[in-house]
């Protein structure tokens, strides 16, 4: 296999090409469902499953699909997979399905998925395509979880509340640190602020790293940009 190694792919998915932080794909779910950690985790898992399966299917069928009809086929594959995931959620995680509501079927419109099909899976072997789906999905899920945890902590003063929606059992309060919180964080504007902070933090870390690299190599002009 001449495709990139697993570690490089992992680094790309989680950091350098993170679908949410860098490619800014799928912002609708990033902003809309991340009012709590468990919502972020749930939608993250669903998106990850769709990404792995759609990348796998697109890659497996890439030899028979001519360029003219590839987009309708991607849409077909992704829509069917999302429908299956939605049915599975309704059957096995009904309360999480209620909490995520329309955002499960809306995974169809998550551009991160069709982008990975087009950019990666349509021109790479099935194994590395599925790994790409896995790492990109992980990057996306981790971002959803991070923003979810951040907003839940600020907005409600709790963390990991209602994990029973994923794992069953009695309703759980999670870690309640303070009663109530800064309301704005769980309202829609809080989502924009949180995402902006996350992107700013990532850029700051990247810049610091680049500055260190430059220092380590005196006399060499380092290309700017990522």
């Amino acid at each position, binding site marked *: 296999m001449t495709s990139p190694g697993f570690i490089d792919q992992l680094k790309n998915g989680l950091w350098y090409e993170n679908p949410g932080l860098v490619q800014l794909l799928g912002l609708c779910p990033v902003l809309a469902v991340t009012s709590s950690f468990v919502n972020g985790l749930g939608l993250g898992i669903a998106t990850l499953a769709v990404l792995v399966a759609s990348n796998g299917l697109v890659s497996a*069928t890439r030899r*028979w*699909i*001519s360029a*003219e*009809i590839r987009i*309708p*086929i991607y849409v*077909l*594959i992704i*829509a*069917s*997979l999302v*429908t*299956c995931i939605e*049915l*599975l959620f*309704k*059957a*096995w995680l*009904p309360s999480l399905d*209620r909490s995520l509501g329309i955002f499960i079927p809306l995974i169809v419109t998550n551009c991160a998925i069709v982008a990975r099909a087009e950019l990666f899976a349509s021109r790479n072997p099935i194994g590395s395509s599925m790994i790409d789906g896995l790492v990109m999905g992980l990057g996306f899920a981790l971002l959803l979880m991070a923003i979810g945890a951040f907003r839940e902590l600020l*907005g409600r003063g709790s963390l990991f509340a209602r994990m029973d929606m994923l794992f069953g059992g009695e*309703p759980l309060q999670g870690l309640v640190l303070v009663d*109530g919180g800064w*309301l704005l964080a*769980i*309202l829609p504007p809080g989502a924009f602020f949180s995402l902006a902070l996350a992107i700013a933090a990532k850029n700051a870390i990247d810049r610091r790293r680049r500055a260190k690299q430059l220092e380590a190599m005196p006399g060499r002009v380092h290309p700017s940009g990522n």
Partner: protein
Amino acid sequence: MSNTGVIKSGVTLGVIGAICTALVALTYQSTEQRIEDNEKAWLERSLQPVLSGVFYDSGISESKITLPAPHGLPGAEDALIYRVYAKGEPVAALFVVSARDGYSGPIRLLVGVETTGKVTGVHVLEHRETPGLGDGVETGKSDWAIQFKGRSLLDPESEGWKIRNDGGQFDQLTGASVTPRAIVKAVRETLLYFDLHKDRVFAKLPAGTAAAKDEE
């Protein structure tokens, strides 16, 4: 694209379409029963908060009637009524109605009323009120909704069916009076409807109402 190209593309699309359809059909079939059970369990569970202290032995989900708007109950959406029986005698009716004057869109409410006209409980099913303020009407978030239990049209009498800010007998929430005001009003309207139409609510085949068509 040449002719054979068109045919080839068409066949490819068809085959992949068939595979995808099969995949969805298979998943649907294997999850159908479970989803149905979940829906039923969820319904029974969500009706529980207004059934505490009520003795009944009937299946509740089977006794549903749907009233399309306009129906005289609060709300512009369809209203649902679940009838509760014990030993064949009606004991209570559970109404799903909407309070229209909330802060942000309709508030979907579950109101349980005993045949005596006493409220068995009020439970907010769905709302878009401001988190941290108006959402205190949710049973899980505060005790606000408990004050309705045991009330009736005579307790308090008509002027009392308002929030305290408006000179009534019902508590509002700190920092939020719009949402509680809307709910108090909707509960009262539901009680008035039940008082007027009690016989029709429990009638097996209420003649001349839309409910008759929906009788299951």
